[in-house]
């Protein structure tokens, strides 16, 4: 399934922060992990992750460092900061709100997949 461009962009921040909250990581590993966790459904254009990482770094949500891996190659590792964790929990509440709202609406409509655009809030 292809995700819309806006949704991909919007979900990148919570995804990156969540993954980094579980341990330091680098760009390629983050992309791979997102792909695995979504069963290969959620695919980013690989390069686009990096501007996102740099933005989060500038905002102070994550911090970066260069490290030499065991294979002798240099990699840029990212670590979530305390501020990043606060941001993550705030994002988490926002996404849960959106998710809960959509679930409530969709639970009331017969079959959102086939009936096209659902009518306004049913069940008055």
């Amino acid at each position, binding site marked *: 399934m292809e995700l819309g461009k806006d949704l991909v962009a919007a979900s990148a921040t919570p995804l990156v922060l969540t993954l980094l909250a579980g341990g330091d990581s680098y*760009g*390629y590993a983050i992309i791979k992990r997102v792909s695995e966790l979504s069963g290969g459904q959620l695919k980013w*254009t690989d*390069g*686009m992750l*990096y501007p996102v990482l740099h933005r989060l770094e500038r905002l102070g949500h994550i911090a970066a460092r260069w490290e030499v891996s065991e294979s002798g190659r*240099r990699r840029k590792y990212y670590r979530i900061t305390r501020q990043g964790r606060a941001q993550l929990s705030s994002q988490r509440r926002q996404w849960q709100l959106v998710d809960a709202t959509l679930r409530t609406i969709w639970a009331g409509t017969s079959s959102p997949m086939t009936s096209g655009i659902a009518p306004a809030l049913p069940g008055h």
Partner: protein
Amino acid sequence: MVASASGDSFEQMIGQWRTYVRRHPSIHPRDVDELESHLRDQAAALVSVGLAADEAFLVAIKRIGNLDALSREFAREHSERLWKQLVLVPDASSEPGHSAFQDRIVMVGLAAGAALAIKIPELFGLHLLGDGQQVYTRNLSLFVLPLLTAYFAWKRRVPLVVCWQLVLLLAAAAVFANVFPFVPGGHTETLTALHLPIALWLAVGLAYVGGHWRTSSGRMHFVRFSGEMFIYYVLIALGGGVLTFFIVQMFALIGLDVRWAAQLWVLPCGAMGALVVAAWLVEAKQSVIENMAPVLTRLFTPLFTAALLAFLATMAWTGGGIDVTREVLIGFDLLLVVVLGLLLYAVSARDLQAPPDAFDALQLLLVVSALVVDTVALFAITARISEFGFSPNKVAALGENLILFVNLSWSAWLYARFLSGRGSFAALTQWQTAYLPVYAAWAALVVVVFPPLFGYV
């Protein structure tokens, strides 16, 4: 890792790819390193599931995505890399900018205004080289900085509230420069003349950032602007000197001595007008100096470090303290200000994401040696104060040394943290931009409080 048989061609392809990516100005070599690391990981993973190295490379490239789109994303995130476009061309979608023609007309008008303003006191019989010298000394910055402020207030479409604040600020400056009954040629008058421009530069900065002075990046843009304007001004002054020389020589050939015209008109009017022109040039011809200023910083940082170290070594060798006279103290202050300028400019021109390199270590050395020199100066000043008591000059020098001491100490600490990988360079940038108002506040304090405090001597 990639199979060694096709390893060479793989490295070649990576090399070609790097050259290609580097053509995008918004993607820095450091980002290319990160992308290359990604590319290699991706390719290695593909090779491990059975692809040939070159196939793996092509798939990995494809997955990185369209480079133009990527470069746009990088440009959006790293605005400081392309700051001239962002500052110069106002966001077309949100606010219509003034046309280049309008801009030039306003600039020429304000430059002419500044050139004429300096002659206004002459209308009241106060001559630059005669009895009006006192008026000129105190008000020098007030002839041109309000016009410069007006230029940016117009150019940035500064909100009306901020405009009123600026007017109040400038009016207060004019009042404090002129109401005090200074003893002619006294110390406090000289201090006012020296500190008023520093305080007023804040007003220019406020207009320059369009009232958004709370943002660190806005202040950093203003630091860059100040550095580049300084370079432009020096260049214009050099050209002006040559021009004046030739005018005087040419008229001497036909038996006319026009030195008076050069002294009374060309020099003062040119010096004032050139400030506005320099500011406009920084805005309009950004890319010229933008490349030069960091080079100059890199050139002079090692030289100043060497000079400071040589000085300290000599002082340690001869075992003598410094003989503190007034001139020496002022010299020290100026030296520290230059060091601070170098530091500020180096900080403003640096790529925030780049890891520590040798130049950062050199900067730390410069800061530390300046700190030592500052400490020596501080000791000398306190010794002199305890021996001869307080004087406006010594207190001003003491205050400035303390302010610089605090800044340099914390900068050294932040640099050390950054070099050891425990801190980010952004912390240093933020410290420097957060500290900027301190200079203006101190300068304002000297202008407002010192004259009455020391009895206008």
